[in-house]
């Protein structure tokens, strides 16, 4: 039974696809995931090794060994990258097996330079991206979406699917805008002569048809997750199923429940049961993209668009030469012929801030106004015409004398009254 962790420095053997073996030292860097721990490879700065945790069952490790072996032998052809861009890693794809003694322990992959990249998750919040040194604009976002789509398309061409496709598993190169996909050993593979399932899913990115059962069509799942990520990137992080209930229909509190019920409020046809989040800028998206979103999310939509369709649609916006992106008067990039999403968003937030300010001001004056209202109600001295009329209409039966008694006398009277009440309570109980 293997239960101890690998030491901080340990010797291992790499087995390359051409059969060559090489003795290396692995250096712990303190990065650990659900399935394994990542080590640096001494004297090989461009590579890292993922070593599966010792707690992984032998049967599972054997499955990993088969899968990694197939992946090393069958790397997918990825979208080409200009030669000027060095060191871009689009997939953390296995390159060699790591052996500890005679036993398979993990794999070696190209190292993704974390100083040049940031998590795609950060792009969903402008402020967070800025903190990471990345100035977000719609041109960059569309390019990131395009690059992600092309990678997914390449994988699908090889009958490989990510399945657990979500922003946290994606890295973006800050300058080059290329996307890296992590955790490749969790992919679903359905190649000729080799099948490997992917069991990991994330409910917020899971297509509605797979919420109650296993993912039987991994590419359809990827299409849904890809559309969700693109929607969130272009809509300031708003999830396509983030909504406000509009009717009496069931409106689950969690996103997964809304996905399952197909409560997509951002379609070109209004959904009767839900309304969009007020901060959404989906109205500023161009029609081709809105059509693809509708096909991806709207209930009863036919044919969820493939990654290739997304790539084709986004290519026109990602290319400067196409002229589909223009500059608004405030200097933001926008989709040509549409309102500027950045200005739209700023307007929404400004309006929200003003409303909040007004509300706060009202809140601060509420106690005084409430006291005045209560006193006027008690004395029937309302000056507003409606309130005054209401006061005049009050029945004659009960009237209160104007409060002339000093407040100290009132307190003294009420203390005695309360003590009398307590005495009465004792005698009656």
């Amino acid at each position, binding site marked *: 039974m293997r239960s101890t962790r690998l030491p901080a420095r340990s010797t291992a053997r790499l087995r390359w696809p051409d059969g060559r073996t090489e003795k290396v030292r692995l250096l712990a860097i303190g990065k650990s995931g659900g399935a394994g721990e990542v080590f640096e490879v001494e004297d090989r700065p461009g590579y890292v090794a993922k070593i599966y945790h010792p707690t992984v069952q032998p049967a599972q490790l054997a499955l990993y060994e088969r899968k990694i072996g197939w992946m090393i032998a069958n790397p997918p052809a990825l979208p080409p990258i200009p030669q000027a861009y060095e060191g871009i890693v689009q997939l953390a794809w296995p390159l060699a097996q790591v052996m500890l003694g005679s036993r398979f322990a993990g794999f070696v992959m190209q190292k993704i330079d974390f100083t040049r990249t940031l998590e795609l998750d950060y792009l969903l919040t402008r402020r967070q991206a800025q903190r990471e040194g990345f100035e977000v604009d719609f041109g960059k976002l569309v390019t990131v979406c395009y690059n992600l789509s092309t990678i997914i398309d390449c994988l699908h061409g090889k009958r490989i699917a990510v399945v657990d496709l979500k922003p946290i598993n994606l890295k973006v190169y800050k300058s080059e805008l290329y996307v890296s996909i992590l955790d490749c050993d969790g992919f679903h593979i359905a190649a000729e002569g080799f099948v490997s399932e992917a069991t990991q899913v994330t409910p917020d990115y899971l297509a509605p048809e797979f919420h109650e059962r296993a993912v039987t069509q991994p590419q359809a799942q990827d299409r849904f997750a890809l559309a969700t990520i693109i929607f969130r990137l272009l809509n300031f992080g708003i999830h396509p199923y983030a909504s406000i209930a509009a009717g009496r229909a069931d409106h689950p509190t969690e996103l997964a429940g809304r996905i399952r019920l197909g409560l997509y409020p951002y379609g070109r046809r209004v959904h009767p049961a839900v309304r969009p989040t007020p901060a959404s800028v989906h109205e500023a998206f161009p029609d081709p993209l809105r059509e693809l979103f509708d096909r991806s999310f709207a209930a009863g939509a036919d044919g969820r668009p493939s990654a290739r369709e997304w790539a084709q649609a986004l290519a026109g916006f990602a290319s400067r030469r196409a002229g589909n992106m223009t500059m608004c008067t405030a200097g933001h990039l926008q989709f040509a012929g549409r309102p500027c999403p950045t200005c739209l968003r700023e307007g929404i937030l400004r309006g929200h801030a003003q409303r909040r300010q007004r509300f706060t001001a009202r809140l601060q004056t509420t106690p005084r106004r409430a006291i005045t209202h209560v*006193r006027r109600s008690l004395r029937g001295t309302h000056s507003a015409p409606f309130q005054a009329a209401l006061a005049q209409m009050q029945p004659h039966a009960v*009237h209160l004398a104007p409060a002339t008694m000093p*407040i*100290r*006398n009132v307190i003294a*009277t009420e*203390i005695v009254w309360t*003590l009398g009440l307590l005495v009465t309570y004792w*005698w*009656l109980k």
Partner: protein
Amino acid sequence: MTPALLLSALAGAALLLAWRWRPRQPMAPGIRVLLLAYSMLGAWALFFGLYAPAGREPAVLLLCKPTLMYWVLSAVLFIAPMLGWGYPVKAVVGAYFVFSNREWRWLNLGFALLCGLLGAANLVIAFAYPPGDWEGFKFSCMVNLVAIVLLRLTFVWVDAAARIIQQLHARAKALFS
């Protein structure tokens, strides 16, 4: 300090504050009598409720306590107007309501009759019905008390609280301006 002493001290402090801040205008004799009656009832309650060992209270009194309370109240409410001592019901309901003397008289009489009837009903139920029924009757009397508290709360305490907040606000404003 024992809980009994603490509660006595609290009641004493409250009374002391009430005495210091008492209204300086003369009190109607009827209300003074009511206050006297309540002082005696309160002293009794304080002694037997907090200081006397359990079981020292006369057993027969246990069943008659509500009746005694109601009839004392009823007697004061009946007798005071007859002697020209005003309407003690004003102290119970609150003198803030603008009623004519005729209305106060009827209110006082109605309250006195109600107390008299409730006192009699307590005797009948306590001695002629099972203990469960008596407990139910006493519970309904508590509901009457709650009704009086709500009346006071709505028409007196809310206004008093509003005045206190307004005065505090004015003082705070004067302090910081």
